[in-house]
């Protein structure tokens, strides 16, 4: 059972960058309702920089907090910089997650990559090389 850090609770209580971007350049959609976590990540890209990032999440406290945290971590970063931010970095930025909740950070990483993948496909015709969402949340 979760005993969340203050950072997690802060991001859960006041999630940053909630919402959609109607004219998003890329959208990452990850997870499914069966497993109880869905994240949607919207990005705006200008000159290779993530000028805006927003999310919508259906999920537990950790799912919401990791979504919020990853948007904060990548906003203003270049795509390359953003892609270097691993799920581990998200967990660290949140002062840790209970072991049973680590999968949420993987979800967040995948949602970001999914959005970048979508952006690259739209803009270059080719997606993010090697991108394949983790199989943490297989549909049943």
């Amino acid at each position: 059972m979760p005993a969340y850090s203050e950072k997690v609770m802060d991001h859960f209580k006041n999630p940053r960058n909630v919402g959609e971007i109607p004219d998003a350049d890329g959208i990452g959609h990850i997870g499914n309702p069966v497993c109880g976590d869905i994240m949607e990540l919207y990005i705006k890209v200008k000159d290779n920089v993530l000028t805006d990032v927003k999310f919508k999440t259906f999920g537990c406290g950790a799912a919401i907090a990791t979504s919020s945290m990853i948007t904060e971590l990548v906003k203003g970063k270049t795509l390359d910089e953003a892609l270097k931010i691993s799920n581990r970095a998200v967990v660290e930025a949140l002062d840790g997650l209970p072991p049973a909740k680590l999968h949420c950070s993987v979800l967040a990483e995948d949602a970001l990559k999914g959005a970048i993948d979508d952006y690259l496909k739209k803009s270059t015709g080719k997606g993010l090389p090697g991108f394949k969402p983790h199989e943490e949340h297989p549909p049943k």
Partner: protein
Amino acid sequence: MNEKRIYMDHAATTPAHPEVIGAMAPYFSDIFGNPSSIHSFGQEARSAVEEAREKVASLINAKKEEIVFTSGGTESDNFAIKGVAFANSKKGNHIITTPIEHHAITEPCEFMKTLGFDITYLPVDGYGMVDPEDVKRALTDKTILVSVMHANNEIGTIQPIDEIGRITREAGVYFHTDAVQTAGAIPVDVNKMNVDLLSISAHKLYGPKGIGCLYIKKGTKMVPFMHGGGQEKNRRGSTENVPGIVGFGKAAEIAVKELDARQAHLLPLRDKLIKGLSEKIDHSLLNGHPTKRLPNNISMCFEFVEGESMLLNLDMEGIASSTGSACSSATLEPSHVLLSIGRPHAIAHGSIRFSLGRMTTEKDVDTVLDVFPKIVDKLRKMSPLYKR
């Protein structure tokens, strides 16, 4: 700090009643003897234990000698399943139960499976109700035990135990019921219910944690679960938890006195909360039977939002509740109970249970009715599912 908080998780555990705490107090270091000791320290403790046994027996209309004290509901359930299984394995290896039992029943059953036992899980309907006819159909000449819980801890549905008991008794098969959620909440009478075994856990009825009992009808063939010294007439080893037993006895005594008042107090509050939430929140579903239901249980699913995030938001408002979503469990599976009554995964993840208690007021209910719809609203705004 407690004053501002609203505790609506009585199905998880209850605070010990002040009289229970008072009753236990002398037994930690004044009357501290081991009841098995012959000397006066021991005999004083022995009397206290036997007096408490009488009170617990009264709560369920049993005989004193039919009460075996255990460490709680889980031990009682393990004892019932394994005790009957090991003692009657020559007669048969078939156990019938339901898919909505507490893990304290299903896990021992699954364990016995590894030792060659066959387990039948009966179907339940959309309310989580068992059809007694299904019990009849499931019986074979290898069946040694049927275990059906009295009321479900998550969705509150009360089973037709009396009828099932008539069927098992006629078939000469032992019948166990897990009454952990019902003892002290609604009438429990081992004779009317036709049960051979019945589990209780004290901390669910304003008694202390770490103590419970298994009712064992006289003549029931059992092997001990806790093998050891000859305590509890050789049915359960270990030095008796004297303060716990005394506290349990007091809690049972209070429950007998208060039973009617408790139900009269809780039913309108329960129904007000269910009605209010259903009206105020769209896409909400009541889990469990609308009337054959624990008087303190409100279990609902709210589509497009996840249980833990509702629970944490409630907690931030000082309201304690529970969820059947199990995003934190290793399997990421939501409650087996909600799945068994046919809730799809996505909806099962969006469940909240409020369980009321002795101290719950109408004002508490009103607070929840005020606060909770806003929480659902806030979370739905954040949910990628709601827009669709």
